[in-house]
């Protein structure tokens, strides 16, 4: 594994909210093409880690480096969220955050806007360059939607989609930004086992097809065990274990954290 170059390195990152250390000295390295799971009980700080990595929440301390388009690692802590996203980081949200009153297609087009070459003036004057670009974007978006079986619903308002499809649309939207690293926050939450299985197959598929590195938060341990190559376990904002699924399953600290939660 070590021959694959790293795409993300987080070193001792921490964040404090009003005296509470929500994430404390968290370390993580993702190598190209890996699929890593981040698990932990409720309130362990998993989503906060995502927010720190994507720049939505500023760090209190620590360093984050990500691979730029030129292939070198650049510091991203302190950068704005949109700048980090443009480095090739796509994400989904635990509580679905689609653009509810935009259509399915428009949701994807918004995610592609930062790739736009034409100016606002082109848009207002409807120049030929503008029309060509709009058509190219739309074609690419439809292509992506087809992967998720949503192309037939491209004109639906996002809020009118059933729950499962909303989750899929979030992933499609994240992919539309053209990421090399995808962060999925509980993509299977609220789905039944069959839907979950299907989604996991889909994730594996897009990972191959778009050559992605994926970091996945999941609550359901059995599921993560199935597809992740490596797992990090978070509790009270600290990494309590990390390793292969087998190692994690045997780790007493992890069992305690999870059983401890369940007996409550």
């Amino acid at each position: 594994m070590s021959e694959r170059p790293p795409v993300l390195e987080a070193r001792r990152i921490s964040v404090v909210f009003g005296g509470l250390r929500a994430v404390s000295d968290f370390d993580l390295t993702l190598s190209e093409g890996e699929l890593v799971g981040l698990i932990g009980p409720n309130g362990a700080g998993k989503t906060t880690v995502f927010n720190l990595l994507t720049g939505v929440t500023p760090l209190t301390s620590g360093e984050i480096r990500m691979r730029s388009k030129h292939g070198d690692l650049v510091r991203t802590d302190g950068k704005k969220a949109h700048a980090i996203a443009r480095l090739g980081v796509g994400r989904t949200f635990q509580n679905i955050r689609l653009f509810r009153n935009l259509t399915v297609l428009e949701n994807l087009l918004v995610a592609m806007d930062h790739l736009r070459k034409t100016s606002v003036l082109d848009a207002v004057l409807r120049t030929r360059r503008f029309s060509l670009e709009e058509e190219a974007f739309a074609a690419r978006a439809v292509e992506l939607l087809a992967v998720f079986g949503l192309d037939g619903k491209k004109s639906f308002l996002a809020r009118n989609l059933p729950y499962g499809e909303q989750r899929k649309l979030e992933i499609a939207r994240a992919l539309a930004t053209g990421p090399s690293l995808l962060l999925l926050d509980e993509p299977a939450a609220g789905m039944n086992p069959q839907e979950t299985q299907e989604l996991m197959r889909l994730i594996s598929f897009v990972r191959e097809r778009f050559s992605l590195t994926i970091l996945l938060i999941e609550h359901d341990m059995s599921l993560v065990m199935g597809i992740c190559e490596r797992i990090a376990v978070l509790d009270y904002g600290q990494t309590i274990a990390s390793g292969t699924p087998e190692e994690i399953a045997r780790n007493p600290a992890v069992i305690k954290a999870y059983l401890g939660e369940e007996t409550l």
Partner: protein
Amino acid sequence: MKKKGVDFLLLLAAGAAVFLLIAGLAWIGVIGEFYLQLISTAGIYIIVSLSLNLITGFTGQLALGHAGFMSIGAYTAAIFVMRLGVPLLPSVLLGGAMSALFGYLIGFPTLRLRGDYLAITTLGFGEIIRVVLNNLEGITGGSAGLKSIPGFSDTGDVMLDAIIKFAWIFVFFAVTVAVISNLVRSSPGRTIVSVREDEIASTSMGNDVARYKMLSFTVSALFAGIGGGLYSALFNYLNPSNFNFLYSVNFVVIAVLGGLGSITGTVLGGLIFTFAQEWLRVLKDFRLVVFGLLLILLMLFWQKGIMGSKELSITRILRRILGLGGKKE
């Protein structure tokens, strides 16, 4: 491609038809000069309300100081015309540009505020602009106002003058509608709407939310300023006290009445608002009471305004009437 070309021609034809119809009816005396003036007034209200709708309806940022931008445009245009002898068209555009510049300068620090805090800062800037205009006596005439501002034309025939006023405002109205609707139905425009829908999701998709808010705010100020420039030529008189907080509220009312995020809604809202004020004059002393009650009832029972965030598709209606088909989406 072909369909778009036809749509464009249809819209152009529809606009020309509406203009010729109203101007023609006025010319033969069916529409009185007063009502033509009222339609022109409504046109300016609509231009400013559309600009407000861009920032409040489409971008989701409540602005309560648009009278301020309007007054900057109005005074700039009037001063260029009166003191520097610049022709009206460049003066109106300069008024818009000046307002846009102020929008940019004000938006820069304030647009990071959210919701009500942004609303109160825009209100504050609107008031500050008014106080400053009041005190720049040498330039603005202070509280006595700026009077005898040249109008659009002076042909000696009052009806012809009224039609020329209407023509000017109609053209600017059409341009405003075209620019704003082209903007919101484009890639950057959709991103502007995504800011309203979910700022965090939008920024996580690589969009510089602050830049898009600035874009929207500046364009909004630009058109409010243009509306102001036209206002100065239509009314021939400016007074800072006219552009107070309650005046700003009028535009918010029009935008909400028509439907936040709807361009055709704003057009309807502006017409209804302007004419309702005239119709209610028969109530004399009770006019404003009834106006307030109507406002409350509308908000209670018609929460999304006339159009919601939908649009009345003029091309679709025309296609249906002309039997061109084109239901295909």
